[in-house]
């Protein structure tokens, strides 16, 4: 029941509350409710006798942690053991966030180190510039990654993003961060082949993404099985932190962030949440079709992957909630060029996929669980009056499109079941930015050429 304590603390309470805990088997259909009767006195206790330990409002700041070892190697090993026991780790060894390392990371911003950026739900942990630099130091990050991470945390704190909600859900949610602007290339964020996986030439995404994971867990309180009910955990431990392939956008196709009011070339990050990561084998084997036919027919394949029944009716927003996007469709720049060459635009793709994900009403009515909820939400509804075919999401605009992935005609990617609105944040660079990038080139070599 740490989920309750963590969520409670997100409301400003100390992580303690009067509750009566039952096995989950009590909360399923046709369960035996006898335990409620056997423990009814505990309800009375909670309302009349229970006393909290914290009786004053205050900011509670934990002390620093000291770890010793006979040498450096042993000290680091002991630190990692401690972090595992305290549930501060993600299970993979961490570097010590020494003062020297954190100070180095902090050269990546001109913001004061004690500036509060956000409070991370559900726990409500206070994310300052300095406390954000700490997990980046632990994951082996570099100063030039910090501006992106700060912008991501700013988005986490957006109340409309409901971080506390998607963190604690039983679903396997993970954060998706799409970076626009020249910063992506400068800090070696991946955008082509292997962009969703590990890449030693482009380590920024994994290190930033892992730092996000630690922030969500440590400051946000989302520890598996106690701080969050996610049955299978976040689908991606390092989340998704990638750059859009702006350099290779087809003529007339604008970067994703321009749809949110940013001028082209602005460094910004857009956040979404997903729990569905699907590689779509859209096309690629030439079997005699024209380029036009290939592109058009590929959307039939893509639509199949996207066809998930809506959770609410009237259909509002994406498949899983009011106002939410249905997901992010990643198209690699080669496929985008092919699509554009035969007249496709982002708008026409959205329209086509919205239409092709419509499902015949007779088929939709076989989705028992969704239909039951539809009738529960709309008492007395005549199912025969539902649209035929039935839309799977509210409108074409609920589909986000970003250009990323290896330049190959066969694959696209679907980051589905977007859950919330998409906060965006401009990425602020320090005055010494050029120096940081130059130092990165000294340490890591020239910026790799994308294949």
């Amino acid at each position, binding site marked *: *029941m740490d989920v*309750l304590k963590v969520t409670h*603390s997100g*409301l*400003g*309470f100390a992580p303690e509350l*009067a509750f009566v805990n039952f096995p989950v088997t*009590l*909360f399923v*259909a046709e*369960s035996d*409710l006898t335990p*409620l*009767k056997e423990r*009814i006195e505990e*309800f*009375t206790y909670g*309302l*009349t*006798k*229970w006393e*909290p330990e*914290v009786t004053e*409002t*205050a*900011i*509670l700041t*934990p*002390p*620093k*942690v*000291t*770890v*010793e*070892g*006979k*040498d*450096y190697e*042993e*000290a*680091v090993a002991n630190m990692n053991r401690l*972090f595992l026991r305290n549930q*501060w780790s993600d299970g993979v060894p961490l570097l*010590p*966030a*020494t003062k020297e390392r954190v100070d180095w990371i902090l050269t990546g911003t001109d913001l004061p180190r004690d500036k509060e950026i956000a409070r991370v739900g559900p726990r*409500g*942990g*206070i*994310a*300052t510039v300095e*406390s954000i630099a*700490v*997990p980046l130091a*632990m994951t082996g990050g570099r100063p030039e990654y910090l501006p992106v991470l700060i912008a991501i945390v700013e988005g986490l704190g957006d109340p409309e993003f409901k971080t506390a*909600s998607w963190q604690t859900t*039983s679903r396997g949610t993970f954060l998706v961060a799409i970076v626009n602007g020249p910063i992506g290339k400068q800090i070696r964020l991946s955008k082509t082949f292997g962009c969703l996986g590990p890449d030693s030439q482009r380590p920024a995404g994994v290190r930033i993404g892992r730092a996000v994971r630690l922030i969500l867990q*440590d*400051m946000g*309180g989302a520890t598996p099985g106690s701080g969050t009910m996610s049955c299978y955990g976040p689908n991606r431990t390092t989340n998704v932190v990638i750059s859009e392939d702006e350099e290779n956008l087809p003529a007339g196709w604008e970067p994703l962030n321009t749809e949110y009011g940013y001028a082209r070339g602005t460094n910004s990050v857009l956040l979404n949440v997903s729990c569905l990561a699907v590689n779509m084998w859209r096309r690629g084997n030439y079997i005699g079709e024209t380029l036009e036919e290939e592109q058009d027919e590929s959307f039939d394949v893509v639509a199949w992957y996207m066809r998930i029944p809506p959770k609410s009716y009237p259909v509002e927003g994406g498949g899983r909630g009011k106002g939410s996007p249905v997901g992010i469709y990643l198209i690699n720049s080669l496929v985008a060029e092919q699509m554009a060459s035969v007249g496709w635009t982002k708008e026409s793709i959205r329209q086509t996929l919205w239409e092709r994900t419509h499902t015949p009403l007779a088929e939709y009515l076989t989705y028992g669980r969704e239909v039951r909820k539809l009738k529960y939400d709309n008492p007395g509804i005549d199912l025969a009056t539902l649209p035929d075919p039935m839309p799977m999401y509210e409108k074409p605009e609920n589909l986000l499109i970003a250009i990323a992935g290896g330049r190959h005609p066969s694959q696209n990617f679907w980051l589905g079941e977007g859950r919330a609105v998409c906060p965006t944040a401009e990425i602020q660079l320090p005055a010494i930015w050029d120096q940081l990038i130059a130092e990165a080139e000294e340490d890591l070599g020239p910026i790799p050429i994308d294949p």
Partner: protein
Amino acid sequence: MAKEKEAPKELSRREFVKGAAVGAAAVAGAGALASCAAPTPEVIKETVEVPVEVTKIVEVPGPPGEAGPVTLEVPDPSGAFEVTELHAPRLDTLEGKTICMLGNESWQQQRTSPYIQELLEKMYPTATFIPYTEFPTEINDKKIGGIVKDAGCDAVIIGNAG
């Protein structure tokens, strides 16, 4: 200091050149021996360029070299947290009080809440209970506090979290 990577086992340039010289000497030797038994062959000198791969071991600065005990001081990554709300004082008794049942209609609440209410009604016959159906289901909305207060609730029982 840590090495960036272990050098693969391979021929060093010195060893390669030495080997080549031995080969060359063997060829020259064979030519010299051959000259005893046969007319001296024409020696054609030809310069051949052979690319030689050189492995460079790059030493990367690691942590400070510490031969003795080491103490690391690192931040608690959970960071600071602010308590802005305190729990309401407990009631002295439920007799004569108004108890409100709240919930988001999830996880069998349509069964558990009425049953809890029924059990408490028997224990506290002078208490008044307002069922969860009389309140909004968006219980994480800040407005719920005012709604509960306006309804005259002295205490709330919220469920169900799964």
